[in-house]
């Protein structure tokens, strides 16, 4: 609890220091993430991950000193739009990094790419901009939103699940994840249950689960919903009779609340903090040392984003005026991603490996997702074919 405050304070202090330090900065980067309300933990991971990469390079990317301007979109589309417009019009930033949520990205997308400023999303990867609306000024360093659920379907096949109970909140992302799972899962979906967003009491759903005869449950319950669901699933004693499989439900942002109840739960993702490559070992330990908590995918993707910008600016020799040259440099993705192989598809969404993950408890009592096995290599999203770029 204290460490969160401390790291938030440091990050704020740093960004203020940077904002006021000098006018002679060569590279201006604006960041639009959610830093209010319950999802603030996600935005904070992005700020921390990016800041870590920046600090490791002594505040420079590609040899250019960086001014980082962090803005809070408050999870309100109008606020996000206002802040993004001010970043490109008043601050004239070279890059905008954002956002956490897809609906925020949709709000800020147009004014940024129309001003010919590069927009790099460290998390949100909606299908909207992956297909025919792909854009030369837009890059994604995370994943395409449907992919994690699609890979979960493959995990379920691999684990040999025959009957799966599927549950998600009743909104766009919830339905997308269910669709993604159904697309790749070869067994039978016993039930498809949609709960209200922000659902409190899952006991009715848990009762249905117990009578459904399913071997496993697949769910997408981000944030507080996931914390409640996991606790109640454990309380109802279902842990012994069915497997729990999810995306964005048991991750490094929710595990501190879920604790032992989530141990052994399966997940799918593009990375885990304990993946064994050298770059990741260095990242995970440096991150935890600096901020006092285990990084999640959000922090990792922001860290990679900073390194991507670093590689591109190095290639252009510090120049940002020639947009075509800068775009070509970004597309090469010539940096060491902590998740291993990483490249961009024609639609500027990543081509990367996806893995089965499992929640484990570390010896020091902290919880994280752990790498189990790679499920699919160089996985591309299914919208890239519609992109003419």
């Amino acid at each position, binding site marked *: 609890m204290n460490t969160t405050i401390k790291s938030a304070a440091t990050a704020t202090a740093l960004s203020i220091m940077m904002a006021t330090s000098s006018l002679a900065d060569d590279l201006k980067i604006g960041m639009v993430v959610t830093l209010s*309300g*319950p999802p603030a933990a996600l935005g904070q991971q992005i700020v921390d991950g990016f800041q870590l990469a920046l600090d490791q390079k002594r505040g420079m990317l590609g040899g250019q000193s960086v001014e980082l301007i962090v803005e809070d979109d408050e999870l309100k589309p109008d606020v996000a739009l206002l802040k993004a417009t001010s970043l490109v019009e008043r601050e004239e930033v070279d890059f905008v990094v954002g956002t956490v949520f897809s609906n925020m990205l949709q709000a800020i997308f147009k004014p940024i790419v129309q001003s010919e400023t590069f927009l790099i999303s460290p998390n949100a990867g909606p299908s909207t901009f992956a297909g025919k609306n792909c854009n030369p000024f837009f890059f994604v360093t995370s994943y395409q939103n449907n992919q994690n659920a699609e890979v979960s379907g493959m995990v379920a096949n691999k684990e040999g699940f025959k009957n799966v109970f599927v549950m998600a909140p*009743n909104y766009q992302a919830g339905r997308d994840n269910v669709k993604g799972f159904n697309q790749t899962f070869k067994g039978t979906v016993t039930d498809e249950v*949609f709960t*209200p967003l922000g659902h409190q009491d899952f*006991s009715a759903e848990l009762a249905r689960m117990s009578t459904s005869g399913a071997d496993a449950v697949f769910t997408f319950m981000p944030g507080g919903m996931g*914390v409640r669901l996991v606790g109640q699933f454990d309380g109802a004693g279902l842990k012994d*009779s069915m497997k729990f499989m999810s995306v964005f439900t048991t991750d490094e942002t929710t595990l501190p609340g879920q604790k032992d109840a989530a141990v052994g739960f399966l997940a799918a993702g593009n990375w885990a903090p304990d993946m064994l490559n050298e770059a990741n070992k260095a990242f995970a330990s440096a991150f935890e040392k600096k901020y006092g908590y285990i990084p999640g995918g959000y922090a990792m993707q922001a860290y990679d984003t900073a390194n991507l910008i670093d590689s591109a600016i190095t290639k252009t020799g510090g120049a940002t005026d020639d947009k075509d040259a800068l775009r070509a440099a970004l597309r090469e993705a010539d940096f060491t991603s902590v998740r291993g192989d990483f490249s961009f598809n024609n639609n500027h969404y990543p081509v990367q490996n996806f893995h089965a993950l499992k929640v484990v408890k570390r010896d020091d009592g902290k919880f994280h997702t752990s790498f189990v096995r790679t499920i699919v290599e160089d996985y591309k999203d299914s919208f890239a074919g519609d992109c003419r770029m």
Partner: protein
Amino acid sequence: MSFTLFLILCLNGLQYGLLLFLIAAGLTLVFGVMGFINLAHGVQYMVGAYLIFAFTALTGNFWSALILSLVMALLIGLLLEYAVFRHLYERSHLDQVLATFGIIIFLNELAKVLFGPATLTIATPEILSGSIQLTEQLRYPVYRLATIGVGLAMAIALFLTISYTRTGMLIRAGSTTPEMVAALGVNIKQLFRIVFGVGAMLAGFAGIIAAPIFAIEPGMGDNILIIAFVVIIIGGVGSISGAFVAAILVGLIDTLGRSLATELLSFVFDSSVANQIGPALASMLIYILMAAILVFRPKGLLPAKGAS
């Protein structure tokens, strides 16, 4: 749908209803007795949950933390009354809404600053952490049964206090003709303060018992406040027994509706359509009920006696 499932739904509905009652009881008294719109009532629910979290961490014991949290919830309610609300009794409803809305924002942000934005959990107390085997796979947590028991006990205690004690009599009298009660030499401001403090404490208590089940996060009281207003409108503003009946009704309809709506619709439509409409319809049910009550019984199901 099996019988066990139905039973579980009813238990959950009852439990949710009692939780709503604890919140609505204070709200309906404050609104009914003082004519004061307190949007910050829901935030007391959140305060209760954070208090039990903080005190459990501090003392390491749920029961001593419970006592401390209740006392603190009462004190915070009284402090808010003293610092903010008492200046607003004579003001218009719009002013009250503005000021109490400000308190919501303030306390939500304060919770975030003090405890961080992440969702927190506390363990259920040891003695209540078991569960009862209902079916082969499913167990029902004892803690939930305990909250039903405590909720019912609270409701009865409150009902007896309002109906049979001197304070209760004054509250009932104060709700209809405050000037007359004041003219008879009763310190009406003192009375208001008691109602306010107890109301805040009840909402805090609801937050405390909800914390081990529903987890703790900033803004958790905002949605429940809206439902609490629905409850007091259905039950009749200012009426404790109305709030009780309405809370149980809303709890049951909401819980059963969520599970049954999709299933019932799938008899009429095919399953994908039912899956689209069901959840949407289920979340509207209680508002439809409220609209119906406003049309056919505008004073609520059990209006307070003499309410104008």
